[in-house]
């Protein structure tokens, strides 16, 4: 009995140790190699050091902020209604993604520094938010925003007036706030200060900005698609039997899309190590 309890306690402990080690330890050099290969960068010493530092910092902030967001959301929900407290997948998902978004912003803010050198040099190359976005993920983001707003309107139209309408209005404002905040942060990431750098280092810096901007799009899209799924689910509760099934099915599909975008956001932030056995960790060329 004691041995069984010991094993039961050991499994989550081992999982926690592994998670902490993976999250706060050094970045696997094969992931750095995968990043360099994916973005077609030169494996110079300065590039490898920059990418290692950036990937580690981004992973720390994203994981820590997600954890804080999840625990604080659950704590608030529990303190408000301890008797009826239940954990829903969607609540957990939205809390983690909100923390994840905040993590991207926090890790990027860390890089924003004003130049202090006596002579400051800057390149005249234009860096814009649009230039760092990925068309597919961007479209997913906008479709998610539109779908979330339409689902919110549908839920508001089907629900009885009063409290429910107030919930939908809050939901609509939340969607607009997410869209505005992401646009603002992407613009900030694109224009964050950078002195004139050697071409390979500038290319690596551009790749990191690209990851942050696309990561924001993907994480934002996952939140918007999940909010759309929640609105569709609420709408199905108030709808007639004829369309209830259709709304439930739409809700499930949008929730799956939300999870897919979340997975995409994670893959962009930390590329999987290259599978090929012949792949070597890049060696310095300078």
């Amino acid at each position, binding site marked *: 009995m004691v041995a069984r309890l010991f094993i039961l306690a050991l499994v989550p402990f081992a999982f926690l140790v592994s998670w902490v080690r993976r999250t706060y330890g050094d970045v696997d050099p094969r992931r750095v190699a995968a990043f360099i290969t994916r973005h077609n960068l030169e494996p110079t010493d300065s590039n490898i050091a920059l990418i290692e530092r950036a990937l580690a910092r981004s992973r720390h902030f994203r994981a820590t902020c997600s954890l804080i967001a999840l625990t604080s959301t659950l704590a608030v929900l529990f303190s408000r209604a301890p008797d009826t407290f239940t954990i829903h997948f969607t609540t957990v998902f939205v809390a983690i993604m909100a923390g994840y978004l905040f993590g991207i912003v926090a890790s990027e803010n860390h890089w*924003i520094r*004003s*130049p*202090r050198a*006596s*002579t*400051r*040099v*800057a*390149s*005249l*190359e*234009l*860096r*814009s938010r649009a230039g760092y976005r990925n068309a597919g993920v961007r479209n997913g983001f906008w479709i998610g925003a539109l779908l979330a707003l339409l689902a919110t309107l549908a839920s508001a139209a089907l629900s009885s007036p009063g409290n429910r309408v107030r919930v939908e209005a809050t939901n609509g404002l939340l969607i607009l706030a997410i869209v505005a905040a992401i646009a603002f942060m992407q613009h900030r990431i*694109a*224009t*964050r*200060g*950078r*002195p*004139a750098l050697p071409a390979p280092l500038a290319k690596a810096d551009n790749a990191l900005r690209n990851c942050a901007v696309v990561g924001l799009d993907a994480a934002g899209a996952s939140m918007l698609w999940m909010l759309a799924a929640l609105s569709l689910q609420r709408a199905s509760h108030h709808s007639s039997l004829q369309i209830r099934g259709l709304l439930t099915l739409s809700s499930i599909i949008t929730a799956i899309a939300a999870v897919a975008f979340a997975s995409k956001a994670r893959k962009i932030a930390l590329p999987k190590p290259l599978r090929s056995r012949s792949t070597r960790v890049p060696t310095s060329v300078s």
Partner: protein
Amino acid sequence: MILSVDPGSAVPVYEQVRAQLATMINGGTLAAGTALPTIRQLANDLGIAKGTVSKVYEALIRDGLIVSDGRRGTSVAASRSLLSEAQRRARLHDAAQQYAIVVTQLAVSGAGAVRALEQQLIQLAQDAS
């Protein structure tokens, strides 16, 4: 294309940025239609106030060297109105005056100042070719 600024110089930062951009545009280093960085980007990169970059862009628009097109941003003007002889002389006089101030502050001889100027002219000619 690199822009450099020395905040400790006697020449105001505004004039340093404006003069370099004007030189690049007039010398053909920045071709017509080339998109310029946004005010925020250039200010962040150089660590100077956004108002300073905004003032530089306004001055270059007034001189007909760049154009601003709302959402498309700022770019080098396609057809630049050439400066008149009087304007050119006035601009040269201003620049020479500022250079003379720096030379005096640094207690450099006249010959040294002319030599430094000649070196810069040669360097610019090499960069443009």
